[in-house]
């Protein structure tokens, strides 16, 4: 009897004695909690991704070879390794244009997914003297050896067990690691031009000829430009096009706007799906509780006969709703965690959008919100389903239940 003293005890007994019926209700609650947790986590990860991307893009303009705009976007957005080259002269040209505050260059090539290399990644050589894109985001400085053959790795690049990375048969020490950027830079590896020479020589020795290692000084893959605050960006672009041929200029703001537009569509789909699932789940719970409580009319009438007031009966049903709502909410949360965390990378690749998990406290908040909302759904739907039964005269309820 001890366990019946509370509404919870009576509710638990009712739930246990009708396992299939209870399972259906728990399932509806599970769906709403799962949808809420995964939906909110997904949306927050996308918001966080675009915010971080915007913050870490660094340059206002990105100059690339005319025919390689798409490849350059791939490197930035998806981390798909690419290589393309243009004349280095553009660096000098850009530096002379009025309104250009900073100019730096990068040289792209790739590693291989074979025994010679740790993994297939984008290799980017940068100039530490002029760089304003990579250096500010070195999150974890391991050694000061960047200039002496050390390598800086993106947040998603995993070094070998000895802490080095291997490219074309030679191991290089990791000098630093970048913080997550939610861009292709997370899967890239950065080095000085000097280190690049060693790797290119090794690659050439193994038969992988990106370009003549002796003849690379006149080539770059991209020139990154930061424009001073009051400068006219259109004027700078016009000057660049006027003075150089075979180039394409990517405005990073426009690149981000494009991503935001795509992101907006994805987020609308997420929002709509979330809303629909929540409505379906809530309506299902109300319908289930109504049907089940109507089947239990006689039970409610008996409770009235035994001296339970309308509000006491509501409390009994509320307890059942809370148990089912919170139970289903927790199950949904577990499934949500099992989706969001292990499939994090898969989601990122599928969406092809900047995707970065938010801080853990926000994830905990989404989990709590999911369970809370589902518990509220459970209690509210059980309460609504009981209300009509407690208002009806017991005699009729008893007769209807027989």
């Amino acid at each position, binding site marked *: *009897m001890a366990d*019946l*003293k509370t509404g919870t005890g*009576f509710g638990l*007994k*009712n739930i246990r*004695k*009708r396992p299939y019926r209870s399972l259906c209700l728990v399932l509806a609650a599970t769906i709403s909690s799962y949808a809420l947790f995964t939906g909110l986590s997904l949306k927050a990860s996308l918001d966080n991704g675009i915010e971080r991307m915007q913050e870490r893009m660094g340059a206002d303009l990105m100059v690339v070879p005319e025919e390689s705009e798409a490849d350059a976007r791939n490197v930035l957005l998806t981390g798909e390794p690419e290589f393309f080259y243009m004349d280095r002269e553009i660096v000098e040209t850009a530096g002379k244009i009025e309104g250009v505050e900073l100019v730096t260059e990068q040289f792209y090539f790739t590693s291989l997914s074979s025994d010679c290399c740790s993994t297939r990644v984008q290799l980017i050589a940068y100039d530490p003297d002029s760089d304003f894109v990579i250096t500010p985001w070195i999150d974890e400085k391991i050694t000061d050896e960047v200039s002496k053959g050390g390598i800086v790795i993106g947040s998603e690049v995993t070094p070998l067990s000895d802490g080095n990375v291997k490219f074309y048969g030679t191991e290089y020490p990791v000098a630093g690691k970048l913080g997550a950027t939610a861009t292709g830079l997370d899967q890239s590896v950065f080095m000085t031009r000097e280190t690049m020479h060693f790797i290119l020589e090794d690659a050439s020795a193994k038969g992988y000829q990106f370009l003549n290692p002796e003849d690379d000084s006149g080539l770059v893959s991209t020139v990154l430009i930061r424009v001073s605050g009051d400068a006219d960006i259109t004027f700078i672009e016009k000057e660049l096009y006027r003075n150089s041929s075979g180039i394409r200029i990517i405005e990073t703001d426009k690149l981000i706007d494009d991503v935001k537009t795509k992101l907006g569509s994805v987020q609308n789909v997420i929002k709509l799906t979330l809303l629909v699932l929540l409505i379906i789940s809530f309506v299902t719970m109300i319908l289930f509780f109504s049907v089940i409580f109507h089947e239990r009319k*006689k*039970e409610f*009438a*008996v*409770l*009235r*006969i*035994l*001296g*339970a*007031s*309308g*509000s*006491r009966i509501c409390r009994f049903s509320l307890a059942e709703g809370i148990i089912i709502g919170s139970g289903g909410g927790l199950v949904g949360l577990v499934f949500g965690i099992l989706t969001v965390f292990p499939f994090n990378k898969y989601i990122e690749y599928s969406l092809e959008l900047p995707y970065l998990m938010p801080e853990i406290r926000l994830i905990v908040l989404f989990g709590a919100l999911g369970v809370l909302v589902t518990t509220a759904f459970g209690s509210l739907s059980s309460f609504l389903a009981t209300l009509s039964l407690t208002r009806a*005269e*017991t*005699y009729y309820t*008893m007769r209807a239940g*027989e």
Partner: protein
Amino acid sequence: MSLLKTEALVKEYKRRGKTFRAVDLTDLQIEPGEFVMIEGESGSGKTTLLNLLTGLTEPTSGKVYIDGISLSDMSDREISEVRNRKVKYIPQGDSLLTNLTIRENILFPYVISGHKPPSEERLKAVASSLGIEELLDEYPAELSGGEMRRATIARAFIDSPELIIADEPTGSLDSLNTSRVMSIFRQIADNGTAVIVVTHQKETLGFASRVLKMELGKLSPV
């Protein structure tokens, strides 16, 4: 002051647009320790009357007083308390909670009120008097109709209410158990609890201290 008193009690229903008077009583008074039996044909208004007396149905007009207080002046919570403590109602048919054991069913009114349940000895004594002592840990689905009926009666007998109202309590019982239950009602009445029993079994009328007949919603002495 009477334990139960009615005052011009009327209950009307509408059937196919026509008003039908199910109960139309002049005053009825029940004193402590009285054992009143009500007989009457099906549809004469007996069950409706019992529902009115227990506050489960609201009268169209008139009043029901318990210990001098009108049910219509009480809140739902107060009427519920009356049903939980003072007036025990044994409805027609099976009224056990199917998810609870017989023991839990008998003691469930205490779960509702939050009052201390009676001792195990008291529970076993009541169960034993009704021949269901061995069934206390069974669920209703495992019991026969007669056993369920006796368990329902045990739930009303377990404490000492001021009034027990029973609607055909022995309907599904054999003659031995009918006699056993009626003897217990008699004993309870002798101990000061008022008892109102609706019955179709004329052979049980001898247990009552007063017999009333119900016809077309009206009560008359037999």
